[in-house]
Every structure is written in C-alpha cells, then in structure tokens.
C-alpha cells in the first residue's frame, strides 16, 4: 500500500474517533456542570475537559474567561480549534477524500453525509436544548462510520491502518479523561458525593457506566473504576483492550509486508506487556497521574514511530 494512503487512513481513523470522543466528553461534562454547585465548580468541569482534549492553551489565547457557552462553541463548531468536532469532521473527511478508493461506499457515505450535514449547521444547533441532540448525533455518526468499516471493509492493510488510528486515538482519549480527574482516584481521596460524581463522569465519558455494573455488580469504587478503564480486557475502551489491538494490528501489518519490524513494534509490545501484567494496587500506589502521563507520552512516541516506519515513505 502507498505510504500516503496508509497515512490518510490512519488519520481518518484518528479524527473520526476523536470527533466522537469530544462529543462523549462534552455530554458527560455538560451533565457534571448542570449538577455542579456552586458555579465555580461548573467552570472547573469545563476546564477539565479543555485540558483532557488538549485545547486549553489555545482556548486561553482567545478567551479571558471560561464560560460554558464559550467552551461549548470552542469544542463543537469553532474551526479555529483543531480539536473541535467541526475540525475533526473536516479533517476526517479530507483524509477520506484522498483515499476514497480504499474505502467502501458505506464508509464514504457515512463520513461524507456527516460532513455535508455539518456544513448546514449554524450556531443554533448547539444552543440550549439542542446541544444534547447534537452530541448524540455526532456520536451516532462516528458509530455508523466504525460500523460501516467493521462490516464492509476487507481485512487488508487498509483496514489495519484505519483501525490502528482508531484504537490509538481511543487509548489516548481514555488515558487523558482519566488523568484529568486523577485526584479523585488518589488513595487519600474521600468517598464523598463530589468524588462519586467524578468517578461517574469518567465512566460516562467513555460510555462505560453500565459496563461497570455488569463487571463489578457493585457501588462505584475508585480502584475498580480505574481498573476497568486501564486493565480490564473486556472493556473495548480500556487501555489494555486498545493496546492489545494495537500490537495485534502492527503484527498483522508486519506479516503482510515481508515481516519487517521496527521501533513501533517494540514500543507497542512493551506498552501492552506493562498493561497486561500490571496490577491496579501497585499502579495506584505508584501514582495514577505518573502512570497515565507516562502512557500518554509513550502513545505519542508510538504514533511517531508508526509514522516514520510506515506512513512517511521509508527510503532504503
């Protein structure tokens, strides 16, 4: 496969996933902000989401005060924010367009129809009562795209690179959402209503609140919430589930392209092993924040290595 094609598929996967993740994060934060009392806590919620989505510094250069309306506008429709849903949809579609021939009709239509629909939106679509509907719509569009890919795509290199982008982005998102609320998971954190809401919010933002009950059949417990999101293989958005698939996918690519392996394979294997053999007690004792920022950094390094080994056109 052309390196550029692989690159576009990889980023198509990442941006499409990111659009859905931002929408999930927004929905969970909106709920937290509505329940927050006093108001300063609401601002804290929006700040957390800004940090988790990596767009806090850019937001600060544009806005002196963080209001709910400004945050929502920034994360949904603002084309100036590269992490806004609008920018993600635009980038996903741009990448899709350059590799149209590697996509199935269903995938192309899923992404193209979203893009067409998006261009018709005005700012009223995210105002007041319409915001939850908008966020559900974005989520359903990314689910449709993922479903179209899962159901219609040949399991060849094109699939592998698209999938690689999707799960790498997903792992990054889970790590960031958890990290931004790491204080609520510290051993000394009180089991009060405020922290309970935090644990709930983390689960909601990766659509895993119900999953928690199915796995643990118990009242929310910070250790188990962290375990579910980091170490449980059953949860498709857990770090373990994501990196297990990253490693498998990189192996599959290596075997279809003559067996050559590089630093990206080593890094993916190391990350996967750390998660596979990790224990939640030890991990929390060493510090959740340190662990998660380590994962986020290694995820970035892994992305670079995949880029230089496969996507940027190695020359002998």
């Amino acid at each position, binding site marked *: *496969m*052309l*390196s*550029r*094609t*692989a690159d576009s598929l990889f980023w198509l996967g990442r941006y499409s996933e990111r659009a859905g993740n931002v929408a999930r994060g927004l929905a969970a934060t909106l709920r937290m902000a509505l329940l927050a009392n006093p108001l300063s806590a609401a601002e804290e919620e929006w700040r957390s989401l800004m940090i988790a989505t990596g767009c806090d510094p850019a937001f600060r250069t544009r806005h002196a005060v963080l209001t709910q309306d400004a945050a929502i506008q920034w994360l949904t429709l603002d084309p100036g924010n590269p992490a806004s849903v609008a920018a993600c949809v635009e980038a996903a579609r*741009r990448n899709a*367009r*350059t590799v*149209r*021939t*590697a*996509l*199935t*009709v269903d995938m*192309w*239509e899923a992404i*193209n*129809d979203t893009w*067409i629909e998006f261009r018709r939106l005005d700012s009223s679509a995210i105002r007041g009562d319409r915001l939850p509907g908008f966020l559900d719509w974005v989520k359903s569009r990314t689910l449709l795209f993922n479903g179209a890919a899962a159901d219609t795509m040949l399991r060849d*290199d094109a699939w592998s*690179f698209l999938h690689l982008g999707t799960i790498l982005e997903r792992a990054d998102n889970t790590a960031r959402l958890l990290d931004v609320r790491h204080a609520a998971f510290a051993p000394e954190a009180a089991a009060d209503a405020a922290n309970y809401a935090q644990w709930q919010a983390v689960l909601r933002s990766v659509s895993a609140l119900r999953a928690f009950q199915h796995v643990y059949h118990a009242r929310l417990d910070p250790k188990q919430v962290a375990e579910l999101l980091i170490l449980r293989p059953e949860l498709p958005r857990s770090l373990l589930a994501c990196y297990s698939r990253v490693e498998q996918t990189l192996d599959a*690519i290596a075997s*279809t*392209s*003559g067996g*050559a392996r590089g630093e990206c394979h080593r890094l993916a294997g190391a990350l996967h092993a750390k998660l596979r053999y990790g224990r939640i007690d030890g991990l929390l004792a060493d510090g959740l924040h340190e662990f998660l920022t380590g994962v986020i950094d290694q995820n970035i390094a892994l992305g670079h290595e995949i880029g230089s080994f*496969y*996507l940027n*056109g*190695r*020359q*002998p």
Partner: protein
Amino acid sequence: MADRPASAFDEMHADGVIRPPYAEMARFLEATGQDALDQKRREAEVLFRRIGVTFAVYTEGGDPERLIPFDVIPRILSREEWERLAKGLEQRVRALNAFLADAYGPQEIIKAGRIPAELVRENEGFLPQMVGFTPPGGVYTVISGIDLVRTGPDEFYVLEDNCRTPSGVSYMLENREAMLRLFPDVFTRHRIAPVSHYPEELLETLKGIAPPGCHGAPKVVVLTPGPYNSAYYEHSFLADEMGVELVEGADLFVRDKVVFMRTTAGPQRVDVIYRRIDDDYLDPEAFRPDSALGVPGLMAAYRAGNVALANAPGAGIADDKAVYPFVPEMVRFYLGEEPILSNVPTFMCEREADRDYVLANLDKLVVKLARGSGGYGMLVGPHATEEQRADFAARIRARPGDYIAQPTLALSTVPTLCETGISPRHVDLRPFVLFGKGVRIVPGGLTRVALREGSLVVNSSQGGGTKDTWVLDDPPPLPPGEAREPGQGAAPEPGQERAAGGMSQSMGGMQQLMGGMAGMPRGAKPANDGSAGEK
C-alpha cells in the same frame, strides 16, 4: 420548442419530423411529462452528490465542490453516424501522433513546407527534452479527447483536439450509470452500445505502452496533482476502476533512473504513469524548478526507457489552436488520405489578411486564445456587447499571435430539461480516443450542453452541463404504439449495457449505489423461550 434558434439543426426534430434515432425517446418524453422528469432530475442530483462526483471551478467562490449539472434527456446517435465519426477520429489521432513523432524527429512536414517552422519550434508547448527521443511504442497521444460539433445531418466539425490531459471521461461513465438507475425501462426499449468497459480499455492501452525496461506485468499508476485539482474525482475514479494506485508526486521517487513508489512495504517499481499533471510540473529537474507536484528525475528515467508516460510530454504542440488549422494537412501528409472529419475554418490573427477580416467581422466570429482552454478568455461575437468587442479588438491588435477566430457555427441542439420545460440547447461532443498497440474508441463520449438559452459555450467552467450519449445499435425502433416487452429481443445481451446491479469490487461510483438484492430468505432468531428473560 418555439425558442429553438431558427438556423440550428435539432438532432431530435429536423424539419418538423422526429429523426429515427430519437423515435422511441420522443414517445417516452411525450408519455412522461415534465413533473416526472423534474423528479428524475432531482434524483440524479442526489445520486451525484452522494457519490461526490464534483468539479471544482477555480474562479468561483462558495462551494468548492460543485456538481456539473446533468441533463436527464440523452443525446442519441445512430450506429451509422457513429461509425463515420469513429473512422474520422482514428484517422485524426493517427495523424496527430505522426506529426508529434515528426516534430520531435526529422521535421519532414516543415521541410516539405506544409506547416510553418515557427509554429513548431517556437511553440510554447515544444519541449527540447523530447527531441530525438522516441516514446515507448512510438505513441505520444495515448489518450486524446477530440471536441466535435455538428451543424446538420451529416456535418460534423472538429472544434479542437486535446492531446495533453483531456478530462471528462468519468462523467461519460457516471452519466451512463445514472441513466441506467433512473430509467431502466427506457434502456430495455433501446439497444445502446455500452461504455462501461472504458477503464479496462484504458488499462490495456497503458499496459501496451510499457517501456523496454519493464519485465513482467507492467505496474501502472495514475499520477494526480492532488485533491485540490478540479478533476481529482476523475483521477481517483479512473485509478479505482482500473485497480491501480493513485499517486501524487511525493509518492514517487527516482533512483538510478528507475521510478519507484513509496509503500508501507518499501519501494515498489513503477512502469507506466498515466499522468494528469501538466508538462511544466512533471519534473522540477527538467522543467519548472519550483514544482512541488512532480517527481525529480522523472524525465531522465523516461529518456532512459525505464518508464512510460501517458501522454508524452510535449504532446501539447499538436493541440495548439495555432497548429489546429494544419491538422487536415497532417492527415494528407502522413497518411496519404483525405480527412474524414472537417476543421472549422479558422482565421489566424497573426496573418495580416486574416486579422483585418477578424477585426472587421468581430460581431460574427468567435475569438479564442490560441493557447487557452476551458472557455476562459473567449469572445462570442454575436452575443457580446459593443464594449466587449472593442476590448477584444484592442487585445488582438496588441498581441495578434495570441488569437484565432472562427465563424460562429450554428451548433446542433438536443432537447434539454429546462426550468420552463423541454427546450433545445446547443451541444458538443467529446469522444475519447485510446492509442496504444492499436486505436480503441468507446462508442459515444461526453456530450456537453450549454444550459443557458441561446448560449454556445458548453464548458463546465462556464455553466455548461452534460448528457449521457447513446450510440444506438440496430434494430431501428418499433413503429408507434408497439411497445416491446422486456426480454423480447430488446433484452441486453452479453456485452450490452446491463440494466441494473452492475457491481464491482472497487469503491466509488454510481455502480455501487445500484447493488441489486435478490429475494433471499433471511435467517430468523428462534422465538424467545423466556428462559433468558426480557431486558
């Protein structure tokens, strides 16, 4: 049909009678009515938008991906009419190719005094890098688009030749797919020559020009300037239909005069490049050094016989508007035949006598840039204002060599669905000629239609639209009132166009929207026995 220009030949109603190729279509239009056709037109637009068949227009603000308007009423040619055109097209393309070989070789035609030397040697499109080099197979014009216009039952003229990177063939193919989807019944009542095999013919043609340095199955790629090019849809469509890679310049590199593409499995050798990049941008080492679209060292690899390029660089001197008047002479000189297709009489403003005539008759002539395309910088005298004509007169006096002029032909019209009903609109025709080991022409081509009433400008960049173009095979249509039952003689035969459900493995295009579904029973989940409990 009251607004039909009195002088134009209408391909459906000539002298008040329905011409035979349109007999069945006339009955269909009569029976169908405006509302149903409008509905079909809206369906067509949704189809084109969904699959993203778009065309970017540089000068337009707003929507960067515009649809070319598609007219649902086809343009129909009889087999007999087409056969004559096809012979003329093959003859013309062979002559253009012979001219290119000669221009970059011995220049016999100049020595014989049949074409002025400066038109070749001082031509902007002339590439010294091509002198003394014979492209693989001796073919320069691998893909040509020859623009034809019609003024009467038997009067066809070549308006211009396109020997560089003619576009539009994807519209020819998608228009047919759209028509098959919108009007399956109409297809069962006609025998329409298929066009859907064009990509296979193109691939065979490209394989046929594989260079001497190629061993084994030739690796063919399509080279595009990228997604921001106006014809990007077509580039990706053709690559997909042929099952070859669509590459950009940065995907290719040259090492030891061999072209490779960068893949996830390392470098892979490339043998034939169907390039949709202009000559100037092909290779920054040979041409424009600032080109970021091209591939450094490509020309050296080409000249070393390690890669084939379609079309050959420098082929533009054959389709230059200043060279155009000499094409009939090329046919006589190289082939020793009389041209089957006529040229439009052309005045070259560079010549004093021609220039005087042009300046005195601007209101009757079409003035074009000798080296322009896309209908930009063009004056249609009879429809221009006094100021526009004065402006062009000044430009012609300032740079006479830049302009040619032709009489305004009464272009034929074809019924077209307009706001106010079905009305005649002027059309042209661009058939695509493939030249590799032999000449291949898919019947028909792209019909472009000037949608504005009375307008003669069909370019898609100037508000033109397109139509499906049918070449009808015999038998002739049945007499009125006698509808042919489906499956009774009119059913598509192998090689005929399929009426529905043409599926291909690849993505993209109208075919995929048409997947038929057989009435297969589906598996059903057994009724819930209650033990699992309802949730």
